């Protein structure tokens, strides 16, 4: 879509920015790197938008969410402190949820926020806290060595951006070759939801509680029903704005009873479509997902119950540490058993 | 059905060994082996000797019909002989390990039974894949027998044995499957692994293809035999294997290779065999002389006998590649005879090893005075191995060499038979070998005498030498306990293990005619088949593309065309 040389140039700049942003000892131009990377990303988006033209340019919110999401992602991978990384990740998740909304995936958007931001990330935070040494009183909070140094930043970034270059070029090429989607009528699905139809028609006063639906044609948007009194009624969406409700005489002539009678809700929502897709079209998926979750739960229980023998090295380190802290500490008196930590029952709950 | 029963019976008993307590393993395994042997005898008894070339007791159960796989069994007289040999050696092996195997008894006996089943399966199968599965499956039990029950260097030996033979057979499988694919590609034919069907397909292939197939198959089977340059796993495996393992290895497992060559190489790629017979024969002869001379400088008895197998199997293969009836029949009888005599030699060595825990001829010698019964058997089997007329080894060795001697097309020409002889002498066949091959191979007979008498001279004759710490004055009391109550000379159990072999060695030496008669028809057919191909050979290159292949190509093109239209 955009000139490949421009694209590659931007990617190189972005890569330089990411390398700079990654944590390292000594002079740490993280901010500058982030700025460079952000600049590259922004320019890329700009060029993309410009190239797209006014009729195909995405919603404005797309840019907002993309910027927030990618910025958060960059921070996740560059922030030396795990807690902050996790919090930035929540930001990314929220931004993704926004993108999902833009993509008409409301259910997924909220599910993402609830499951990811609500449950998984909280578990992460718990674990981060469990697995981080609390700073001693009066001591400076010292970052662990492994958090302050990135591992092979240049190689990883180069590989990543080569991959990115290949991906973007290919997706530009691929998207333009995609076949145009065939739009189906989602309302056909209403045939599978007779009770929803009944309910909606009744609550909107189109049908009485004793009325019986005779025939529906969701393709054409026609509902025929017989009232308790025995009159034949026809509800047609296709005729007039908002649909008309007519009474059909015995000779076939119709008399409009009510304009604008088609209930606003008498259509299929995205969530319903998703539900049908999930449960009717892919029932195996949900089974497999269930099994996976069950196994994960069992696994987490088993793992966290495991008695762990602390390494000899770690034990020594712990003993010397304790001895330094407490001069009365006798290495012989303390049973090594105590060094073995009890299973963390909180983990299991967190896993659920 | 009998043959399926034959294959399953040892497996059932193997299961029994696994389930029952270890104390009963030996008895159960022995019972299983004896029953299997009895069943082989029953089958032999019901075998129609008037029709030895047909595969009798044939039974085929569809397995994966889509791929043309079937559990297809059937035996001709050659399979029958080898089945009998396998059946006989089974109980002997169990008896031979009666006191030698003391720990992990269950494992040992269960695997012995599984091995028995696999070996019987090889000889019974008429389906290529069933054959191959059984052929390869013999490796697993053998690997376990060597690596768990072998002597000091067992790990290396077992791994080498396994990898070496396995690598070879995978190449052979590739060749065989290629034939099957060629078969499937022919018009009107579908995938099948029926050996007879594949044989006729393979024979239609051009010489060049056949040569490659020969190479592939020999890569697998020659390693198993083992032929000269690919023999080095054998001495190692033999030396390290437990007695029963050595016996089975020498007695039956090596025969899998020769049997496969008889079953596959000769009828599948006759043109290529005819073409390369001299080359293969030279390898055999090198094996005979080279293996024999190496035997001569061994100090380890077991290694000596192991290398002697290289030399002996060289004779066996030489006869096979003579490609005439005499040679092939000699080769088939050699399989049986070598199994009996060399198996017995390994048993004898095992008995010594059990008593003295050494195999070195430097430490051990002059046992003639101390163990007269053992020594008698030793001399007897050594002589059978040397090929003394009147014992079994001679018949087959003689036939192999005579087949080689006969197999010379040059015999009708002036350079060999005198300038004026224009009609071929009566006693010769077509072939590319001839007297020189026989004479040079014949030096192997002398070398065999040299090394076997050297061995006998070292351990049977001479002054008594026993390993240090084996004080023979106090031997009787002191060692009773240490050696599980083994007597100085052989005990009744050991004599029982040896006696049937000795009796057969003698019987097959004195009266081999029934055995020769029973294998006559199938071997004649094989020889005639090769003869037909040989006659076709000179005119072969012009029609290098046989009709079948042409058809298949044409069919392939039309298929493509059809697809294109669709």
């Amino acid at each position, binding site marked *: 879509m955009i000139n490949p040389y421009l694209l590659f140039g931007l990617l190189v700049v972005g890569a330089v920015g990411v390398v700079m942003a990654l944590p390292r000892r000594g002079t740490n131009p993280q901010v500058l790197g982030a700025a460079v990377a952000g600049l590259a990303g922004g320019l*890329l988006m700009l060029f993309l938008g410009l190239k797209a033209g006014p009729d195909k340019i995405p919603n404005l919110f797309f840019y907002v969410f993309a910027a927030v999401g990618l910025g958060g992602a960059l921070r996740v991978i560059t922030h030396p402190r795990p807690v902050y990384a996790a919090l930035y990740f929540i930001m990314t998740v929220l931004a993704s949820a926004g993108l999902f909304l833009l993509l008409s995936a409301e259910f997924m958007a909220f599910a993402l926020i609830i499951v990811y931001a609500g449950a998984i990330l909280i578990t992460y935070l718990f674990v981060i806290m469990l697995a981080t040494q609390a700073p001693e009183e009066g001591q400076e909070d010292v970052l662990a060595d492994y958090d302050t140094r990135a591992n092979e930043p240049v190689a990883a970034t180069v590989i990543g951006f080569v991959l990115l270059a290949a991906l973007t070029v290919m997706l530009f090429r691929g998207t333009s070759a995609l076949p145009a989607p065939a739009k189906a009528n989602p309302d056909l699905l209403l045939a599978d939801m007779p009770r929803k139809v009944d309910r909606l028609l009744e609550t909107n006063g189109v049908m009485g509680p004793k009325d019986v639906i005779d025939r529906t044609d969701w393709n054409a948007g026609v509902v025929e029903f017989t009232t308790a009194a025995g009159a034949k009624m026809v509800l047609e969406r296709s005729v007039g704005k908002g649909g008309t409700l007519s009474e059909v005489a015995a000779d076939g002539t119709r008399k409009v009873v009510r304009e604008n009678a088609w209930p606003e809700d008498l259509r299929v929502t995205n969530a319903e479509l998703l539900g049908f897709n999930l449960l009717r079209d892919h029932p195996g998926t949900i089974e497999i997902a269930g099994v996976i979750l069950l196994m994960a739960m069992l696994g987490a229980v088993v793992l966290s119950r495991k008695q762990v023998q602390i390494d000899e090295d770690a034990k020594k380190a712990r003993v010397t540490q304790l001895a330094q802290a407490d001069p009365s500490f006798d290495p012989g008196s303390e049973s090594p058993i105590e060094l073995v930590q009890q299973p963390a029952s909180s983990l299991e709950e967190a896993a659920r | 059905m009998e043959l399926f029963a034959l294959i399953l019976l040892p497996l059932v008993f193997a299961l029994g060994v696994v389930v029952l307590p270890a104390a009963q393993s030996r008895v159960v395994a022995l019972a299983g082996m004896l029953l299997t042997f009895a069943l082989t005898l029953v089958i032999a008894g019901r075998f129609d000797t008037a029709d030895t070339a047909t595969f009798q007791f044939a039974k085929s159960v569809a397995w994966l019909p889509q791929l043309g796989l079937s559990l297809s069994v059937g035996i001709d007289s050659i399979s029958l002989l080898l089945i009998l040999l396998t059946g006989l050696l089974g109980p002997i092996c169990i008896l031979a390990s009666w006191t030698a195997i003391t720990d992990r008894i269950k494992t040992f006996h269960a695997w012995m039974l599984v091995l028995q089943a696999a070996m019987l399966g090889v000889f019974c199968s008429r389906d290529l894949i069933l054959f191959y599965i059984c052929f390869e499956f013999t490796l697993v039990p053998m690997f376990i027998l060597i690596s768990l029950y072998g002597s000091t260097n067992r790990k290396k030996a077992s791994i080498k044995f396994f990898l070496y033979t396995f690598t070879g057979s995978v190449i052979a499988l590739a060749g065989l499957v290629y034939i099957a694919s060629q078969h499937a590609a022919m018009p009107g034919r579908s995938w099948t692994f029926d050996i007879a069907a594949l044989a006729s397909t393979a024979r239609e292939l051009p010489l060049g293809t056949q040569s490659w197939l020969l190479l592939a198959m020999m890569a697998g089977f020659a390693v198993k035999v083992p032929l000269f340059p690919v023999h080095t796993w054998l001495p190692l495996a033999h030396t390290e294997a437990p007695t029963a393992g050595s016996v089975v290895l020498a007695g039956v497992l090596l025969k899998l290779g020769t049997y496969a060559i008889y079953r596959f190489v000769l009828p599948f790629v006759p043109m290529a065999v005819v073409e390369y017979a001299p080359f293969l024969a030279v390898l055999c002869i090198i094996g005979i002389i080279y293996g024999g001379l190496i035997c001569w400088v061994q100090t380890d008895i077991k290694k000596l006998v192991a290398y002697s197998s290289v030399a002996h199997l060289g004779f066996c293969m030489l006869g096979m590649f003579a490609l005439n009836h005499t040679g092939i029949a000699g080769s088939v009888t050699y399989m049986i005879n070598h199994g009996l005599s060399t198996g017995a030699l390994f048993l004898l060595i095992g008995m010594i090893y059990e008593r003295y825990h050494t195999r070195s001829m430097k430490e051990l010698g002059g046992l003639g005075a101390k163990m007269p019964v053992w020594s008698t058997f030793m001399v007897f089997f050594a002589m059978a191995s040397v090929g003394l007329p009147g014992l079994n080894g001679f018949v087959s060795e003689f036939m192999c060499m005579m087949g080689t001697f006969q197999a010379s097309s040059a015999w009708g020409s002036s350079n060999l038979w005198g300038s004026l002889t224009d009609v071929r002498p009566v006693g010769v066949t077509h072939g590319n070998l001839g007297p020189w091959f026989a004479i040079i191979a014949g030096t192997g007979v002398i070398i065999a005498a040299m090394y076997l008498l050297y061995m006998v001279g070292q351990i049977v004759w001479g002054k008594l030498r026993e390993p240090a710490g084996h004080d023979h004055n106090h031997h009787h009391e002191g060692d009773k306990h240490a050696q599980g109550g083994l007597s100085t000379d052989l005990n009744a159990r050991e004599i029982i293990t040896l006696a049937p072999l000795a009796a057969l060695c003698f019987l097959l030496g004195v009266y081999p005619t029934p055995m020769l008669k029973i294998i006559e028809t199938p071997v004649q057919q094989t020889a005639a088949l090769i003869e037909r191909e040989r006659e076709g050979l000179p005119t072969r290159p012009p029609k290098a593309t046989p009709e079948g292949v042409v058809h298949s190509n044409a069919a392939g093109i039309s298929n493509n065309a059809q697809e294109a239209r669709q």
Partner: protein
Amino acid sequence: MNMTTLTTGFVPTLAQAGFPEVMSQVTLGHYLVVAAIMFVLGMIGFLTRRNLIIMFLCTELMFQAAGIALIAFGRYHLDFSGQTFVIFVLTVAAAEAAMALALIVLLYRRKESLNAEEWKDLQG
């Protein structure tokens, strides 16, 4: 609530309740670029960071990217299987989080460190 505005103009509206309209290939490309960048960032993070927890966060990041791409494609094709797949991904991510975090806690108890390089002995 006008569905056409979403794709035709630079209009600051969020999603709509009704069944979506057809999306252009160019718009799809935008989403995919974002997904690709996020994926690569996650990958770079996985490759460069030594902290086991951050490495796992990075894998989650890659999951996110995959999810965006899937949903975008589903949106383009007007097929909800994309979302179904994201549900599956979400499930796997949750399961993975449970297992992986339990393992991380175990590992941390052994070595008192979250450094992935401490565990190179696991190579076997």
